[in-house]
């Protein structure tokens, strides 16, 4: 039966090649489309979450909602050793973050002020790789690193002084004058417009929050499951703390991703409708061409179910062939654009940046996408093949032989 099916495939090379090509291009288009969509989000989540905010954050209960320094936590109340020993935890990163008006005297802007230990930070805030001018601030110094966008807005250069004015812990005034030691390009556009980074101790001093932290970021080992780590960490924290994962930290981001994915699904579904009709067309052609032969085979003693199985086998071979070739051909494309993203320009760039997203299109190299879309096309093929099965099961051999 396999031999018969195999040879039937090649009896009409044109039809077989059209079928294989249709399946292959459908898989390629669907995979490329989804790879860009997933890749952009993967990169964005990786940038925002993995490199800047972390998959998990510990705060004093209520801090994330209020963003108030009054909901800071005393760093001595945390069991650092126990938390660091949880499997999947690479390190714990202390931060003090608040807002302040930053002024040069001529211009000013409300900014996000982040007190950190750069050497302990997530890769996006380790700053050494992000500096485009100057140097990192000295520990516990009165120096700051300003994000590129903010520096441009305030027209500051290295060595200039910045005035800070804000509200500190428990209503205290928070003010200070700091020298710009470096300018950093932060990959996240939103942060790049408003971030000022300074030593943790300096920030604690300015905000009258000595020994206090607003946030402890849980840096995870590669491939660690944040949900599992979260479940292990929760018992170690008392009821005064909140442990939030990135989906709780950025629900808008999750919703945006879901909405965008749904839009992409609609597009891919339209693509699948088109390919379904292309495949149906080839199956109808095949059945029409071979109606007489089907009649002969049933006449000489081939059961209709066996004949239907051979026909389905033929279609499956074509579909698997097309899907596998499509999945393989698209792989280098996925790798290329993962490491060589498309830079958007013009109005598209501006539109994307308005949403604080990096204007670059990345792909994901996840093979799951290829498998999913290969499988979907395969299922479509099986459904379309049911037309041939239906025609065979209701075949009248005498009429068919007259066809």
């Amino acid at each position, binding site marked *: 039966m396999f031999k018969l099916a195999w040879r039937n495939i090649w*009896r009409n090379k044109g039809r077989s090649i059209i079928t294989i090509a249709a399946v292959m291009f459908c898989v390629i288009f669907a995979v490329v489309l989804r790879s860009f969509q997933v890749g952009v989000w993967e990169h964005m989540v990786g940038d925002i979450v993995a490199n800047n905010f972390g998959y998990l954050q510990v705060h004093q209960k209520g801090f994330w909602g209020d963003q108030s320094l009054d909901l800071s936590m005393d760093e001595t109340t945390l069991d650092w050793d126990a938390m660091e020993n949880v499997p999947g935890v690479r390190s714990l990163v202390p931060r003090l973050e608040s807002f302040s008006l930053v002024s040069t005297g001529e211009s000013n802007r409300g900014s996000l002020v982040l007190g950190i230990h750069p050497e302990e930070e997530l890769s996006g805030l380790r700053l050494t790789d992000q500096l485009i001018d100057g140097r990192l601030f000295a520990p516990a110094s009165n120096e700051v690193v300003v994000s590129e966008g903010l520096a441009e807005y305030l027209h500051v250069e290295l060595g200039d002084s910045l005035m800070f004015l804000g509200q500190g812990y428990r209503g205290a005034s928070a003010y200070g004058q700091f020298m710009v030691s470096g300018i950093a390009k932060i990959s996240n556009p939103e942060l790049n417009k408003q971030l000022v980074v300074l030593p943790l101790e300096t920030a604690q001093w300015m905000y009258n929050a000595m020994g206090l932290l607003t946030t402890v970021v849980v840096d995870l080992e590669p491939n660690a499951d944040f949900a599992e780590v979260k479940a292990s960490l929760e018992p170690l924290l008392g009821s005064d703390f909140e442990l939030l994962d990135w989906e709780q930290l950025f629900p808008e981001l999750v919703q945006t991703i879901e909405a965008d994915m749904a839009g992409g699904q609609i597009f891919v579904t339209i693509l699948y409708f088109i390919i379904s009709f292309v495949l149906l067309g080839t199956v109808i052609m095949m059945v029409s061409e071979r109606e007489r*032969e089907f009649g*002969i085979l*049933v006449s*000489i*003693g081939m059961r209709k179910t066996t004949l239907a199985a051979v026909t389905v086998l033929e279609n499956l071979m074509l579909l698997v062939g097309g899907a596998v070739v499509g999945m393989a051909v698209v792989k280098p494309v996925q790798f290329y654009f993962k490491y060589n993203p498309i830079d958007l320009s013009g109005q598209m760039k501006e539109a994307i940046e308005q949403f604080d997203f990096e204007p670059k299109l990345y792909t994901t190299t996840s093979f799951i996408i290829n498998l999913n879309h290969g499988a979907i096309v395969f299922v479509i093929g099986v459904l379309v093949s049911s037309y041939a099965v239906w025609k065979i099961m209701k075949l009248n*051999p*005498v009429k068919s032989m007259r066809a």
Partner: protein
Amino acid sequence: MSKPVIEVKNLEKVYEGAVPVHAVNGISLTITQGEFTALKGPSGCGKTTLLNMLGGLDQPTAGSIAIGGVDITTLSENALIDFRLRNIGFVFQAYNLIPVLSAQENVSFIMLLQDRPKEEREVRAQQLLEAVGLKGKEDKRPGQLSGGQQQRVAVARALASKPQFVLADEPTANLDSQSTANLLDIMERLNKEEGMTFVFATHDDRVIKKARRIISIEDGKVLSDD
């Protein structure tokens, strides 16, 4: 006396329509083992319809067809297909070989459907092709054979299942004189030497001359049976 292979009683086939057509109208006949019978008559007389019903390809409107004692009009669709596979050989006007299979594979195919062992299939297919004068052509596909050669493959295929009889519908209609003569010689030899029963539907005088029994049909009825 030879045993009956086909027993037809009061067979009728009516095609419904604005004006019902009685393609076969109350035919009764018996064909015994070893016969070399021709059903003759003009186009549209009902001989092909009769042949199709004898082969279980078409259902009669009324009457019965017993093959080897089994009333095939009562069989389910699958049972009828299996019955055809094991008891009836077909030779069609247009050869109707499977184009993607070689001559030997076309002959073996029926035995494959019968679940016969590979070795037996190969040996018997070669023997049958040799018997119809196609030794050396085993690997040729239908497209590489002449019309006469294809029809000989069809005869070998019809015999491969070791049927009780072979039904041949206008087997020489597409053949030239030489091919017709060769084909008829082969079928006559198989009939005489192996006792294979052949029933032809034909209006080809060359076939009719070879037949030992000629049943003339007109307007769906048996006109004469000699």
